[in-house]
């Protein structure tokens, strides 16, 4: 069974694409069969970071039915065992994906025969991004140690969380007051008093069910562009804090050091890990890769998206 890791995070420029490419490369180098899927629809970049001159496209051919099986749109990369599915030749309006198309992509992804499937997601918290993130219950979010990125990460987590709640409530019989609170969340319902409390009030029997559903979700996160002068315990603190104040699990995977050569490798369209395998960020990502390989897969969720 493939392990799916959606890679998101609210803010742009924090290194989602870079981390996706690097993690994928290292997983492939350790002998796993890996596919990277560019799901930053309308903002595709992953092919460039991988040094691929995309002339064929990938997801576009799957959506227009030129190719029946999504797996056949995967192309090899310079790294053995590492494959890539592009979205760079999709329609200019692809960012506003049809609901049916979204479901088609998600279902196809869940059937891909690889060891690891990494999804490079776009910026922001639009429904497509959130639903792609919810393809798996072990999404990774990338953040940098700056207030702007941290703010957007928390917003992203809350948005994923609410989306998840909506899916759960929609698919199971909850009290009408709960359904109403979830489908028309006022500002307060999204943040503090918490849907759990509303459930507790109107649907006490379902409280444990909801808690369990939420605790089945394991967020992982990476702090990228980490500079030496910063407090190295920030990540652990965020992990601890989120585990305390959200109903889901959080795991801090590690810091990835800042390095100007990352920018250089993007300019030269080379895979950084390949070009500088012993640079500090490469070592950092190697450690994260080992952590991912050694983690037992979280019980996978299917059919949550409707």
């Amino acid at each position, binding site marked *: 069974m493939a392990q799916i890791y959606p890679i998101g995070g609210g803010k742009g420029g924090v290194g989602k694409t870079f981390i996706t490419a690097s993690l994928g490369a290292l997983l492939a180098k350790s002998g796993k069969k890996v596919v990277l899927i560019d799901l930053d629809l309308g903002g595709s970049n992953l092919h460039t970071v991988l040094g691929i001159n995309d002339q064929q496209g990938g997801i576009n051919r799957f959506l227009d039915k030129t190719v029946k099986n999504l797996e056949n749109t995967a192309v090899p990369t310079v790294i053995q065992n590492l494959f890539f599915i592009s979205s760079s030749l999709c329609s200019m309006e692809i960012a506003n994906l049809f609901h049916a198309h979204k479901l088609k992509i998600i279902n196809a992804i869940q059937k891909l025969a690889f060891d690891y499937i990494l999804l490079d997601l776009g910026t922001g918290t639009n429904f497509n991004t959130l639903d792609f993130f919810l393809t798996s219950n072990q999404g990774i979010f990338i953040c940098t*140690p*700056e*207030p702007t990125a*941290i*703010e957007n990460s*928390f*917003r992203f987590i809350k948005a994923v969380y609410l989306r998840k709640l909506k899916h759960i409530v929609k698919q199971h019989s909850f009290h009408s007051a709960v359904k109403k609170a979830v489908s028309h969340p006022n500002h307060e319902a999204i*943040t*503090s008093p*918490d849907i759990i409390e509303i459930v507790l009030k109107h649907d006490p029997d379902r409280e444990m069910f909801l808690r369990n559903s939420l605790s089945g979700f394991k967020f992982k996160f990476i702090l990228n562009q980490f500079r030496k002068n910063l407090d190295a315990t*920030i990540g652990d*603190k*965020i992990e*601890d*804090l989120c585990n*305390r*104040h*959200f*109903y889901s699990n959080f795991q801090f995977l590690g810091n990835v050091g800042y390095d100007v050569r990352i920018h250089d490798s993007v300019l030269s369209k080379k895979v950084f890990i390949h070009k500088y395998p012993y640079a500090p960020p490469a070592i950092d990502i190697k450690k994260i890769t080992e952590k991912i390989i050694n983690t037992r897969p979280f019980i996978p969720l299917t059919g949550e998206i409707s």
Partner: protein
Amino acid sequence: MKNFEGLNFYEILKIPANSTSFEIKRAYQDALSIYNEDSLVTYSLFSNEERGNLLNTVKEAYSTLIDENKRAAYDAILLDSGQVEMSITSIQNQKTPPHAHTSHMTDSDTVEERVRKKSRKKEVETLSNEILSRDLISGDDLKKMREAAGIELSEMNAVTKISVSVLKSMEENRIESLPPNIYLKNFLRHYAEMLQIDPKKIIDGYLKHISLTKKKL
């Protein structure tokens, strides 16, 4: 968002129930560095109201645990509710370790009781009455009364916490190694209380004796 629901003060500060006040202070600083308004870690995570409530709880946890009396009362509540076990709370357990030179490590209460019984003997009373009637009381007198009661220096030390070397200096009239008068008076009071005799007479008599000896030198 969850607040601190279901967490006790120790859990909120992330410390074990037998933490020292130093550990409590450090844990409090750590908690503030996370929940304070200018903390990067919680930036934008909480509304002002939520943050205010969380900070108030953290402060309440700190002010309760750092105050010995409040902490004991709080521990009692936790014990009653079965949240912690007796063995891991009780601050009494971590009070001053036993003194190295008390050969038998009995509890100071029982030593005190035993010592007091000794000084209640009849012959001790007669001796001390005779000594107390004098104007001057020397270290030898103190020693005589102590020995008559059969109290060892180590037992004296275990109860009064006066070091054995100071006790010896007092008994041997070694003026040069006696502590300043303000301490000496206090030591004499403890000594007298140990023998269950009038502290005032002992203090006056001994100090007079010492000042006379000084003049003679």
